């Protein structure tokens, strides 16, 4: 049984060595050499990420500032959903590319489970939507990329009891190259937008829909009728009569599920994602506010609060920064950042500001 146990030890920041060695070291320190364990760490944003190969171990060590917090779980108890999505998923582009690199260059090494990837987008509710529609979820906060698309007014043809009818609709008009929307491959120019986070857009103006999308931008779910209907999943249970081209009948408004419930989307998930307003307590003299990026403690404390009982928490303290309280308040962290000449090394500048847990003063 793993209880909550805490160990603190130091490691050479610049020569972290191999993952294998580190793994052994961990097992040795904790006297659990006979167990299969999963090692994870809290990255700069407070997300729980796995350590299971040389690359992400190196990444973990190099981005630790000043201390690397390592979580050890028994392999068979690992709740993969804790990685990525449910850990206040905040994703950085750097990590995405890192992962991709892993896959390409060293396909032989131990690649973590799909859950370890922070999701960027997904198709949801396939089972309840008509096959001509697609519900896409974009995880804005899982990615540093801009959402990157434009919408426009247009007309769409619908089948109604009175025959074909032209009705105004909202369409995707442009994708920004390199943006999140484009990189998912799930949205395309001229796709008609039918719903935004479960709210139908019919009868709403372009500006209203724009505002709705921006208001939901941290976790945007849009239901579209793709302009290209050839990639749709054809379900056998359906009548085969509706081929990709004669989609008008299924595209009629009545075929949309009437309830606005998004099945695979737990409301609390959205709530928690969003409530992460950042609160800085305590007195700050105005003139002392640095013109720098600072890190709040809220996200870290959140992790602590949610730590499971059978999870080992280890603090890995790097070099001279021992004794610093991991849960210390923002101002201590701030001053440590200021005094530590290496802070520029550990915080990639561009990446920080986009992140939800960091505020800009």
């Amino acid at each position, binding site marked *: 049984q793993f209880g909550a146990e805490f160990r603190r030890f130091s490691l050479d920041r610049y020569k972290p060595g191999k993952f294998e060695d580190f793994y052994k070291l961990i097992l040795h320190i904790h006297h659990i050499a006979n167990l299969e364990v999963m090692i994870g760490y809290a990255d700069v944003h407070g997300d729980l990420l796995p350590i299971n190969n040389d690359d992400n171990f190196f990444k973990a060590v190099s981005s630790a500032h000043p201390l690397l917090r390592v979580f050890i779980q028994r392999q068979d108890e690992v709740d993969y959903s804790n990685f990525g999505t449910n850990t206040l998923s905040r994703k950085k582009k750097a990590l995405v590319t890192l992962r991709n690199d892993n896959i390409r260059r060293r396909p032989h090494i131990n690649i973590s489970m799909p859950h370890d990837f922070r999701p960027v987008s997904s198709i949801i509710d396939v089972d309840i939507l008509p096959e001509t529609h697609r519900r896409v979820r974009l995880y804005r906060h899982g990615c540093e990329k801009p959402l990157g*698309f434009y919408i426009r007014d247009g007309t769409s043809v619908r089948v109604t009891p009175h025959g074909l009818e032209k009705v105004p609709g909202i369409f995707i008009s442009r994708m920004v190259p390199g943006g999140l929307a484009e990189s998912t491959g799930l949205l395309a120019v001229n796709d008609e937008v039918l719903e935004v986070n479960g709210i139908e857009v019919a009868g709403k103006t372009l500006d209203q829909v724009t505002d709705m999308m921006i208001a939901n931008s941290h976790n945007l779910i849009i239901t579209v009728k793709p302009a290209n209907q050839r990639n749709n999943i054809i379900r056998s249970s359906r009548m085969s009569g509706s081929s990709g081209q004669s989609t008008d009948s299924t595209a009629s408004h009545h075929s949309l599920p009437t309830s606005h419930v998004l099945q695979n989307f737990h409301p609390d998930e959205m709530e928690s994602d969003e409530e992460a307003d950042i609160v800085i307590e305590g007195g700050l003299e105005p003139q002392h506010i640095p013109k720098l990026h600072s890190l709040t403690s809220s996200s870290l404390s959140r992790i602590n609060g949610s730590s499971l009982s059978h999870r080992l928490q280890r603090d890995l303290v790097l070099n001279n920064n021992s004794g610093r309280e991991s849960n210390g308040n923002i101002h201590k962290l701030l001053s440590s950042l200021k005094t530590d000449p290496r802070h520029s090394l550990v915080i990639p500048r561009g990446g920080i500001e986009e992140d939800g847990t960091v505020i800009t003063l």
Partner: protein
Amino acid sequence: MRRFLRPGHDPVRERLKRDLFQFNKTVEHGFPHQPSALGYSPFLRLMAIGTRSGAIKLYGAPGVEFMGLHEENNTVMQIHFIPDQCQLVTLLDDNSLHLWSLKQHSGASELREENRFTLKGPPGSPPSATQITAVLPHSSREVLYLGTESGNIFVVELPSFRVLEDRSITSEAVLQRVPEDCCNRRSCELVEALQEHPKNPDQILIGYSRGLIVLWDLQNNKATHHFLGNQQLENLYWQRDGSKFISCHYDGSYTQWPVSSDNRQPEPLENLVPYGPFPCKAISKIYWQTTKNGLPYIIFQGGMPRASYGDRHSISVVHGSQQTAFDFTSRVIDFFIIFSSEPTAEFDDPSAMVVLAEEELVVIDLKTVGWPAVHPPYLASLHCSAITCSHHVSNIPLKLWERIISAGSKQNIHYSNMPWPIDGGTNIAPDPPQRDLLLTGHEDGTVRFWDASGVCLHLLYKLSTVRVFLTDADPNDNMNTLGEDEWPPLRKVGTFDPYSDDPRLGIQKIYLCKYSGYLTVAGTAGQVLVMELNDEDAEHIVDHAEADLLQDQEGYRWKGHEKLKTRDGPVRFEAGFQPFVLVQCQPPAVVTSLALHSEWKLVAFGTSHGFGLFDHQQKRLVFVKCTLHPSDQLALEGPLSRVKSLKKSLRQSFRRIRRSRVSSRKRRGGSGNASEVQEANAKFDQEALQEMELAPVQRKIEARSAEDSFTGFVRTLYFADTFLRDSSRHCPSLWAGTNGGTVYAFCLRVPPAERRMDERVRAEQAKEIQLMHRAPVVGILVLDGRGTPLPEPLEVAHDLSKSPDMQGSHQLLVVSEEQFKVFTLPKVSSKLKLKLTALEGCRVRKVTVANFGSCKTDDYSENDLAVLTNLGDVQIISLPFLKLQIRYPCIRKEDVSGIASCVFTKYGQGFYLISPSEFERFSLSTKWLVEPRCVVDLPEVTSNNHVHNKSGVENAARKSRNLGDYGEDERKSGRLMEHALLNDEKVLKEIQSTLEGGR
């Protein structure tokens, strides 16, 4: 948990909602936009104004107002009251005639359209044959004489509008009865004027455009006299006894003609060009008024020397040796003279002249020496300088009210003491429940205080902040310093003056504390003035401080306007609000938020760069806080202010004026081509639509980031005495919300009263909240332990509010453009929220706490949030549970300036600008409703059709109310509102098409 707080419909609550909330647009305040016609009934003592959008408004005694709207939405060209009736006829520019009447319905009079009519000529005749140019309602009240462009005069019966063809006076018939030597075929083209003989209803005077004037006998169908003018005729006016009449002409002359039985073709008695000898502009209307002392009043419009004064809008009054040319700042639409209407009176004895100019109503007292202006109780020109902001204060204490009125009366000494001469009808509305002030800030640096308690929005006092600053234009150099021998004897009248000396003087934010009389105003160039009410004139130095909001931020350079220069040394201020502190923000950007705490004697102000707190007791800056994001360069260029450079604003003013001139001259050719026009419009619309398809409007979907522009823009400031640090001690605090979704909270230490001057006020930042969705914060509010908003400063001290619950836990409500969110205090954690934008796609534009009382019981009232969205909807959201109660469409979403101008009152009413010069008043409450309710009674009418009654008011007061059959009326009133909406839409399209055409 939250899911369980959203139950379905609770029938009890639904019933209560019906008792609390109700939406009504109640009355329009101010001056009608683009007036086009004026009418007056000496019998009812009511005035009617028609507008270019087809509205017709009737005004009598203060509080007596009616409004109607023509379905066609066409310009009202002429308005004529039917003699001795509660009826009037309007002529629109589509050549249609409309009969309106005032009828009583459940105790109050209402204006309804009764009938409409378009004159049709014989098939094949040109449209000009029936184009109406002159309308004469005959004193018999049975017929209308309609003069046309063809020279024919048609007669229609009232109220049926049936054409009486046998009674038409054709131009051929007139020509036959006039000697051939004095006229030809063209003499009878276009009837310019029709006037009934004042004593003999069987005779009418017909004036043709080319100068021929004929006195026509209706009984015998013949011309009794004809008068041959050699100038193009503009108008005619009978002398009271019918022995003479006067004609005015295109060349700026007027001519007197005798009417006697012995001479059938008299020569003119007098022919005069009053502003000759050089060529003059036309005299378009003239009055000849007799008096007891023998000297007549000759009052005429226009006639100025063409070369040097041709651009003036003037009306001249000549009485013996006295002569004044009243000079108006905008085009004169029409005017009338109020004189003795008693038929037995021997003389006219004019008492007042009422002039409708394009931008204001001016009334001149003709009985008092010097002919002073009369202060109008309504129809105020709200836009005499463009309105830049407004602020409403409910329930003003009597003491402050009286002091403001007394300060205002000292400013109004140049006005006449004459009681308001247009006094028809009786106001039967209950007295306003409380004294309300509406303060409007203007582009020229003035603040106007309006009595907004009742139906008549009435100017109480005008405050100017200009004296504090050194401006280019010296206030002493006014335009009235004309020498005695100046000719023409011009005298500028009216208050409409759209020219701003310096746009930096513009007022942006106002806050008045009704208990202490402290007022703070802030303007375009970062100036913040704190003022105190003083009943006497005083000369003193204004303390001056500067607040550097950038502090030591480096690398910034302000590219906007300079700050205002201040006047050194003491400045003389007139009685009223006198400034004693001036804070100037650096950089001098527009002040975007302002808060005053009169008990703590603190004023907070914010711009796009940061905010500051000033102690106006010790006259010391407490702190400043820069909110600027390092990457936000745009905020420094001052684009908000750059839009209004001096040059540009002048240019725009000129353009505005020019445009209104051009459009007002627009006259439609004929009525026959209405369908063609429609077709053309439809085609145009289609083309426009196609064009839109080609180049679609795109909207970028992107999350807000910290680096967006103007994230540091301070949107709201709020003082609260609450639990900021711990739950055991409360302390004064200042809250600020920015455009980037950040809320700052500062803990304040205000020394106790006895050491207030000795110890400094201290401030310390206690909290900073970054809303995840980063939407602009538009409102911050603290709710006490009972969920009630904290009272205003000094409200408890004046026993006007229960003291807040300082035991229970306070809550913080942050309203962003997208969400309403309640947090706990002192530890800030989210408790409750309403996501408006995510659900409805609309954003919050205005939000206020309003108190709603039940119309059923006196003892129930509750506080809710009144919200206006960017779609123009008004919503009520409950406190503290943030549940949407009710939603009404209020303003069209395209009407951006209307939405931006909206202010809510503390009791669920609101105002917004429907034009630059008019406020629409609306009410969300069932209890507080200010709307006109008045009665106009028809004085007794005897069988004799030519009896004039003494005065409408006297009769109105004593006559019993006459209730008739109203079935039809109700149907019509139902449609009226639809028309209003329809018309709005049309106006909008018109505006849009003009804009597109202009590009």
